């Protein structure tokens, strides 16, 4: 059976793509952000994951309001990146792991998750940039994207996303394979792009949330989506991806490294690497 080595979470602001393309990682603005990944690179060199299951949210590249899924699971041989409209460079395709995709899909439907299955799926910055951040020298993992709706309300509750993560974790651990799997969640932390409240950031909540993921992973499931928007901003709800990730890495974890930096673009940028024990 496959083994989950741990969970990785990070913010996924589009501007990161520009910074990577222009080689700005050492600039004063970017250094505190990119430096946070260095200890994680060393850890990944040790544990050498071969597959990544990635919880992310689409930002209007693959899904439109004509067919907006709550949960979508990729089941494609490869996932192409594409123009999102603002000129960050398009990355080469990412390799899929369709046998794991279908194993996850079957397990999720059996567990009464009503997923949308995607045999073709364009992946946006929320999927691509974190992979480049964790593996700047080239992405050595095959992938399974799991997309959670944060575009259109009603959103799935924090509790439902955590349960989704748990079920995905069960599926990975019952996958008939000897591969090492890492779970990744991208998005957040607190930020809001739209409305008069644009620029909202809530550092105390973010730090408490990051802390909870280590030893009290269900802490955030006490909040409704409405409360989470209130506390973290309209885009801060992307923390749902972090919650699903932690749900997939069950039991106790060791904190490999964390980073928190304000601001990248309009975002409180967070990063965590948790090793499964």
């Amino acid at each position, binding site marked *: 059976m496959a083994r989950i080595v741990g969970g990785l979470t990070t913010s996924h602001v589009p*501007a990161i793509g520009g910074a990577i393309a222009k080689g700005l990682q050492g600039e004063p603005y970017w250094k505190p952000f990119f430096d946070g990944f260095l200890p994680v690179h060393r850890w990944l060199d040790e544990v050498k994951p071969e597959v990544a299951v990635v919880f992310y949210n689409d*930002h*209007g*590249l693959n899904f*439109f*309001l004509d067919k907006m899924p709550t949960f979508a699971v990729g089941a494609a041989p490869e996932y192409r990146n*594409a*123009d*999102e*409209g*603002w*000129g960050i460079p398009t990355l080469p395709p990412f390799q899929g792991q369709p046998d794991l995709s279908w194993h996850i899909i079957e397990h999720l439907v059996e567990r009464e998750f009503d997923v949308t299955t995607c045999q073709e799926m364009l992946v946006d910055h929320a999927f691509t940039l974190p992979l480049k951040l964790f593996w700047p020298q080239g992405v050595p993992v095959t992938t399974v994207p799991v997309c959670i709706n944060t*575009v*259109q*309300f*009603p959103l799935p509750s924090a509790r439902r996303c955590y349960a989704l993560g748990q079920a995905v974790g069960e599926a990975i651990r019952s996958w008939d394979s000897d591969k090492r799997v890492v779970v990744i969640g991208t998005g957040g932390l607190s930020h*809001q*792009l*739209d*409305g*008069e*409240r*644009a*620029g909202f*950031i*809530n*550092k*105390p*909540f973010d*730090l*408490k*949330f990051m802390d909870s993921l280590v030893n009290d992973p269900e802490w955030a499931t006490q909040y409704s989506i*409405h409360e989470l*928007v*209130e*506390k973290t901003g*309209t*885009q801060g709800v992307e923390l749902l991806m972090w919650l699903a990730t932690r749900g997939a890495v069950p039991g106790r974890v060791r904190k490999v490294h964390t980073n928190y930096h*304000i*601001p990248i*673009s*309009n975002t*409180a940028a967070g990063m965590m690497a948790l090793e499964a024990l």
Partner: protein
Amino acid sequence: MQQRPIPGTILFDGAQAMKGYALNRMCFSFNDAVNRAAFKADEEAYMQHYALSPGQADAIRRRDVLGLLAAGGNVYYLAKFAGILGLDVQDLGAAQTGLTKAEFKERLLRHQTQPAAAHP
């Protein structure tokens, strides 16, 4: 489901999604460079093709971000319109808060010194 409003925030729910469908559909098309060029070549014809409401078309003409949100625009699709205009999220933030971009950035930076221990 009545919930207490969050100041300065419109949740993109069913009511907004219905109101904004044409506008968001147009903005979704801007993923494609060909469509961005077509819009730039003739904004009025492009908006007419997507059957924008008069209020939506007007907000597009005036580059009025808050107006676009009020007209049912969704920030994820509107971001592609902002891309056409060469605006980043801090330009948008400044435009929506009535600050200059420098002031808006300054305000973001101040969050660094929020105390970690305050009640979340």
